[in-house]
């Protein structure tokens, strides 16, 4: 029966497209399921219609890579079974067969797979602070998506805050697009940037680009601050400004800045729910403070018919995602007796990028002291509107030491986003309260459906399934 099944790739970003390309080259016809309207993923996302902008204008220094990836997709399109706007919301466990539950144009379907390559990507990693749910506050990635895919800026006078290379890149892109960049507020101390010197040896292009963005922002008169912690968004129905603290030579200073939009974030967090539902074994990654599906150098998981690639298997960026997509497909071909993987070169290239990520993480560190200074009445979970105080009370009342227990008793992580926006903070909150490390509080288990889906009962009534 399985002979008639095809490999299924979930995701059509850098990893998914390169995986599909490799399988097509071996004579296979994979099914590619894409939640997006057009292939490209998030970093090389395409607009719904052509808006007259060049690749250079849309993707900047990565224009060549974006164009090559899109062209590669168009070239294999006749040879694959591509299904855009398709949400995969469940994967059957091995005992229950090789089935995906999908929602395709509002219709539920089941799709079988011979093997599964998960290229599910990442979302922004965020942490709460007073006012983070105010209209006009977006993630850093969102501010870039608005510009890249819709040709809009999130406001006229924008503040960018957080930690990561994206902070300076998006601020620069907004400057180029004609927005007023009121400030770039780096949450990392200025001393962390010394690690860029080390990075320059291994990845001179990345460092040169980053320095160029920083320099152009400064030349344009943009205020750049380091060691920043936000105190509160000013304005209630919309963003009117931001009050923040920053480290100075003599101590701390509190400053306010007027703006009509704020974009913030702290690098990315992987989308791992489908690998979890598939029953793959997970391991804690201390550097990224996140649980990842166990994988070998090629992307094999603990489940013999499931492979992982791209940022969903560990944050490593678009270049590494293209490589790991091809590697996962090569592993699949080897495991099914079609071709030896012969992947030493690609494995080495991916390893080199992973080493660069280690240095990058030191130059743009995660603010692990964040929750220590966020007021208790701040919203922790934006779906269920649970405050940090309620989270703390639940932890104390139930002597909670495990993250799923916290979810059960406080509803944090139980809402529509399934913890995508609050799990980083919930982990920090719980490990802080228990005096343990982030890895010791356990892993928030995925639940199907991994995103809200409409359910038709008798074809007329609509309801929503939440877990």
């Amino acid at each position: 029966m399985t002979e008639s099944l095809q490999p299924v790739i979930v995701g059509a970003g850098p990893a998914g497209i390169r995986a599909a390309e490799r399988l097509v080259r071996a004579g296979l016809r994979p099914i590619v399921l894409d939640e997006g309207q057009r292939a490209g993923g998030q970093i090389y996302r395409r607009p719904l219609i052509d808006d007259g902008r060049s690749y250079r204008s849309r993707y900047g220094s990565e224009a060549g890579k974006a164009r090559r990836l899109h062209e590669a997709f168009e070239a294999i399109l006749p040879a694959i079974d591509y299904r855009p706007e398709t949400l995969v919301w469940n994967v059957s466990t091995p005992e229950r067969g090789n089935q995906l539950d999908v929602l395709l144009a509002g219709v539920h379907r089941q799709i079988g797979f011979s093997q599964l390559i998960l290229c599910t990507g990442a979302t922004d990693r965020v942490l709460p602070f007073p006012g983070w749910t105010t209209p006009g506050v977006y993630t850093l990635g969102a501010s870039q998506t608005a510009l890249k895919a819709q040709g809009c800026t999130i406001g006229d006078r924008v503040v960018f805050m957080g930690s990561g290379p994206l902070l300076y890149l998006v601020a620069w892109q907004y400057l180029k697009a004609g927005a007023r960049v009121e400030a770039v507020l780096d949450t990392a101390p200025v001393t962390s940037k010394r690690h860029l010197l080390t990075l320059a040896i291994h990845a001179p292009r990345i460092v040169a680009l980053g320095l160029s963005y920083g320099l152009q922002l400064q030349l344009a008169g943009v205020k750049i601050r380091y060691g920043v912690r936000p105190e509160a968004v000013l304005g209630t129905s919309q963003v009117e400004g931001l009050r923040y603290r920053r480290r100075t030579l003599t101590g701390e200073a509190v400053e306010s800045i007027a703006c009509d939009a704020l974009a913030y974030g702290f690098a990315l967090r992987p989308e791992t729910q489908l690998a979890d539902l598939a029953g793959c074994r997970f391991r804690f990654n201390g550097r990224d403070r996140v649980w990842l599906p166990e994988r070998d150098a090629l992307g094999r998981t603990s489940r013999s018919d499931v492979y992982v690639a791209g940022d969903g298997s560990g944050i490593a960026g678009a270049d590494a995602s293209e490589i790991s997509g091809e590697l996962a497909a090569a592993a699949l071909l080897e495991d099914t007796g079609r071709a030896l993987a012969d992947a030493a070169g690609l494995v080495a290239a991916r390893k080199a990028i992973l080493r660069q990520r280690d240095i990058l993480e030191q130059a743009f560190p995660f603010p692990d002291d964040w929750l220590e200074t966020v007021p208790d009445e701040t919203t922790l979970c934006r779906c269920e509107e649970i405050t940090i105080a309620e989270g703390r009370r639940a932890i104390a009342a139930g002597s909670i030491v495990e993250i799923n227990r916290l979810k059960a008793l406080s509803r944090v992580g139980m809402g529509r986003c399934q913890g995508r926006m609050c799990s980083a903070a919930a982990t920090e909150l719980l490990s802080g309260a228990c005096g343990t490390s982030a890895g010791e509080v356990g892993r928030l288990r995925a639940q199907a459906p991994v995103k809200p889906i409409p359910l038709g009962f008798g074809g007329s009534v609509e309801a929503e399934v939440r877990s």
Partner: protein
Amino acid sequence: MSMNPLLRRRYRLDETLVPFTLNGTAQTGRRGDTVLTAILSVSGRLRQSEFTGENRAGFCLIGACQDCYVMTAQGSRVRACSTALLADMAFITDLGAVSETAHD
């Protein structure tokens, strides 16, 4: 509503207009807009939160945070950031307006 539009359009400025209604009022978006872009180019929110009623206008824009659900005049909901705007769509972002209508 005294709220200012959130988004500022930089491209597709001359693209074909697409009519829709927002809380019963005629509005226009542009071809190639998502529902989110169309609404936030003329308004400052997409919905009010279930528990505290605070204004929300989306957050991640890539279909992950589920914060940008918008109610349609037909009573269903769409995820605004990942739904293309179609002509004559009708949205409700002001629950007060709905309950007033219901009492009439």
